[in-house]
Structure formats: structure tokens, C-alpha cells
């Protein structure tokens, strides 16, 4: 059997590619930063400005509900922290599927996986900023009953825990195709927890956790989120359609 050997130019190209990729390890954050600078923030959420607005309205609704509920605020913040992220991811992905833009987006230089990774980072940051604001307003609104740092810590724990879980699911083509599963599972889990345990008792648990422990939890979950994001960014989803758009 004749095995066709590569031609000289093919060999050179392959060696050059290996050297280029092999000598310099790829770094996710610098790559995402370069992409963001090249594309611009304006195009990062292009076509989804209405979805961002809806998600922000959802967060505002949560604040208005919690304003009068200082004694269950922490429990509600943990459960509802990923709301903005969840709403954006779910509605944006649904919208893009309805319009039918995903296929050509997947073939662009900056593909959907890279865009999603960047969006997740930005949404995580936006979510964190919103949680901080929410914590401030709640503290002011409840006359100091809700501590700002504790509120921010609890909500960041919820946000990063959700983000981490979502990224782990995205590693599997089967689970990635059913983007509605995690939001439903999260909501059901929180509802079950709140039904099983008195929300005030759950709230009390969050009140008793020392701030240092809470802070460590935030940092660990943030690290887990970034680690999972890196795995998603570099290894994608082999064997199936490499769609992302926050699924």
C-alpha cells in the first residue's frame, strides 16, 4: 500500500505551526482582551441590547421585592444572584437561534465559543457590580439590617457557583444542547431548599458565616469559574456542533 508522504511545503507549514503553537503557551485572558479591543465592547453584545435591558429589569424587580424582606435577603440573594446572567444567557441564545445567526457566527474568526467566554467574563463582572449596588441599596433600604459586604459575598457565591456549573455542562455536547436544564435545575433546587428549610433559618446561616469564610468561598468559586472557563475556551466541544452563545 502506498502511503502518500507530505510534500515539502506541507512539512514546513506543519513544523512552523507546531513551533508557533508549541513554544508559546496560549493564555485565555490576553487573547480575550485582544479580541475585545479589536471588536469593541459595542459589538460584544450586538443584537442583545434588548435582552440586557430585560435582564437588568429582572434584577431591579428582585431589588424591589427584597427591599421589604430584610430577614430573608441573603437567602434570596444567593438564589437570585445568577438571575441577570441566567436571563441574558437564556434569552440571548433563544433569540439568536430564532433569528438563525448562529451558523455563520460559528465560522467567523472570533467564533461563538470565544465570544461566549468573553461575554461570560463581562457578565460575571457586570453581575458582580450589580450585586454590589444591590447590596448597597438593600443595606440602605433595610436600615443596615442587611450588611453590604455580606450581601455582596453571598450573591457572588451564587453567581460564580452558577457560572461554574454552566461551564461544566457546556463541556458535554449532550448537556450543552439543552441550555434550559441548568436554569430549571437551579430554580427547582432553590425552591426545594426554601420549601424544606425556613427561609429565615437559611438566612440565619448566611448571617452566621464569618465574613472571612464567605470571602474565601467567593475566591474559591471565582477560581473554579475561571478554571472552567479556561477549559471551555481551549477545549470546546468535540464531536458535535461547536455552538455556544451562552448555552
Amino acid at each position: 500500500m502506498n502511503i502518500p508522504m507530505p510534500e515539502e511545503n506541507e512539512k514546513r507549514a506543519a513544523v512552523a505551526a507546531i513551533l508557533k503553537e508549541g513554544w508559546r503557551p496560549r493564555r485565555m485572558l490576553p487573547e480575550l482582551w485582544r479580541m475585545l479591543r479589536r471588536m469593541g465592547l459595542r459589538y460584544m453584545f450586538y443584537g442583545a441590547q434588548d435582552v440586557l435591558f430585560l435582564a437588568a429589569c429582572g434584577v431591579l424587580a428582585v431589588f424591589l421585592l427584597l427591599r421589604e424582606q430584610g430577614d430573608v435577603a441573603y437567602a434570596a440573594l444567593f438564589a437570585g444572584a445568577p438571575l441577570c446572567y441566567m436571563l441574558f444567557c437564556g434569552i440571548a441564545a433563544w433569540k439568536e437561534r430564532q433569528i438563525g445567526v448562529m451558523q455563520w457566527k460559528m465560522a467567523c474568526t472570533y467564533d461563538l465559543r470565544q465570544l461566549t467566554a468573553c461575554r461570560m467574563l463581562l457578565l460575571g463582572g457586570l453581575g458582580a457590580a450589580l450585586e454590589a449596588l444591590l447590596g448597597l441599596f438593600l443595606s440602605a433600604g433595610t436600615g443596615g439590617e442587611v450588611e453590604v459586604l455580606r450581601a455582596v459575598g453571598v450573591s457572588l457565591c451564587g453567581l460564580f457557583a452558577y457560572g461554574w456549573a454552566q461551564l461544566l455542562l457546556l463541556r458535554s455536547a449532550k448537556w450543552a444542547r439543552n441550555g434550559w436544564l441548568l436554569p430549571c435545575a437551579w430554580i427547582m433546587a432553590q425552591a426545594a431548599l426554601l420549601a424544606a428549610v425556613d427561609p429565615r433559618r437559611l438566612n440565619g446561616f448566611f448571617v452566621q458565616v464569618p465574613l472571612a469564610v464567605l470571602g474565601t468561598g467567593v475566591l474559591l468559586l471565582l477560581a473554579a469559574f475561571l478554571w472552567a472557563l479556561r477549559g471551555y475556551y481551549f477545549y470546546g466541544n468535540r464531536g458535535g456542533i461547536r455552538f455556544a452563545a451562552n448555552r
Partner: protein
Amino acid sequence: MLQIDNVTKQYGKFTALSEIDLSLENGVYGLLAPNGAGKTTLLKMLATLLFPTSGQIRLDGEDIFQMESRYREKIGYLPQEFGYYKNNTPRQFLRYIAALKGIPAKRAKLRIEELLETVSMTEHGDKKMKKFSGGMIQRIGIAQAMLNDPEILILDEPTAGLDPKERARFRNLLHGLAENRIVLLSTHIVSDVETIAHQVILLRGHRLHACQPPGEICRTLSDRVFELPLGEALPEGAVFLSERQTGAGAVQRVACETAPEGGMPVPAGLEDVFLYLYREEGV
């Protein structure tokens, strides 16, 4: 050169494509097969939307999936169902896609104007796309695929839903775009490719059946295609291909080994070969 080496794609137990081997160089390749034959699957793999179950696809010796964004920089892709933002104008829409393709803003602006001119859409550049016809949307689709001046242009059924005039316009457009690049165009409409394709790729039974110039493919049925008046009984073994209207009335084209009574031999066309080859697949 784009090399497709023994590529197979399976979805569970269903085999969409089996052991496809192709070498593609600059030129227009018409991927011709009936619906469900695997054309879109092959094109999606070339556009990196799908991974092969086995086999490899290489560009100048490098695996395209390992190349990642370096490969996607070199391709332009127009999917079968081309979605767009209805409230965008073509200029807004193309600026966004240019950003996704990493094209700097100044260069993108010039390129967009060039492409709008090429696809005859300059005067509609600031109108909302929700008002456009199917043909106009497809032209914007071609323009977005060409934004990065790709080495490989992948068009999945680009003429689906277009009227004959738009399809003719599209063929003329492709003539101009096909220089110095690989153009891969899938269709089940023979007339889309018979005059513009340098090579026609036929898929059959989810496998590669042929990759040859149209003339050579037509020669597979040479001296075996006949026309006789519509309604005449066909001899045993003859395969009905199509019917058409002539000045003398309706005639039927058939393929058979020997000339039927009253039959006039005619040169075999690409459509004859297509209909003959896929006759068992309900075409």
C-alpha cells in the same frame, strides 16, 4: 490545497457521510446531490461547525480544527439558512460581521463599500433589511462571506428560494468571485453549477461518487440519452429522465442502452446524469 482525507460523519448509528476523499485547489466545485445526501454535513465540516467522526481535513498540510481561528480567517461561509438582524441596514450588519472577523474598522468600511458595489446593493445600503426580498438577502449573505477576502468560499444552497433571474445574477456574480480561491457550492439544482463549476462533486449513498469536470460526467451517459414524443411507450430497460416542451410539442428524455423506436439521440446533459444516477432516490 484543501485535503479531505477519508472523512466519515456519523450521528449515532446513522452515517451521514462515509470515507470521503477529496483534494480541492483553486476553482469552483459544485457539490451536487439530492436532499439528504450529506452536502450540508460536508460543508459544515469544512466550515468547522461539525467535527468528522473519523478522518481529517487539512489545509496545506495542517488540520483545520487545530488551526482554529487561523483557518476561520481564511474562509467565508454562507449557510443554507442565513439569519440576519431585520432592523439592521446592510452597512450596519456588515460592520458587525467585519468586527467578528477581526477586520479593523477603517479597512472594513472600504471593503463593505466594494462588496455592496459587487453585489449591486450600494443604493440599498442604508435601508432596513426587513424590507428586502430573498434575493437581496442572499446577496448580502454573499457579501458577508466575502468580507475577509477568503481563500475558501463555502456556499450552502445559495440559490434556494431564488427566482430564475436572481439565480442567473448569482451565477454571474460567482464567475467574478471565483478567481484565486476555492469555491465550494452545494445545490440540487443542476443549472446552478453546470456552466460555472470546474469540477462537479457527486455524492451517492453518502459516499463520494465522482469529482470530475461536468463534461466528463456527462460523457458517462454519452450515446445513451434519447428524446421521443411524450406519451410514447418506453422500451424495456429505459429510464425516464425528464420532459420538456419543444416547438413540435412535448418530448420525453430517456436513458437506455439502445435507441428506442422513434427516439432521437441527444447529447447527455448534467441534469440527465443527475436524474439517472439518483433515479432510485425518488428524484
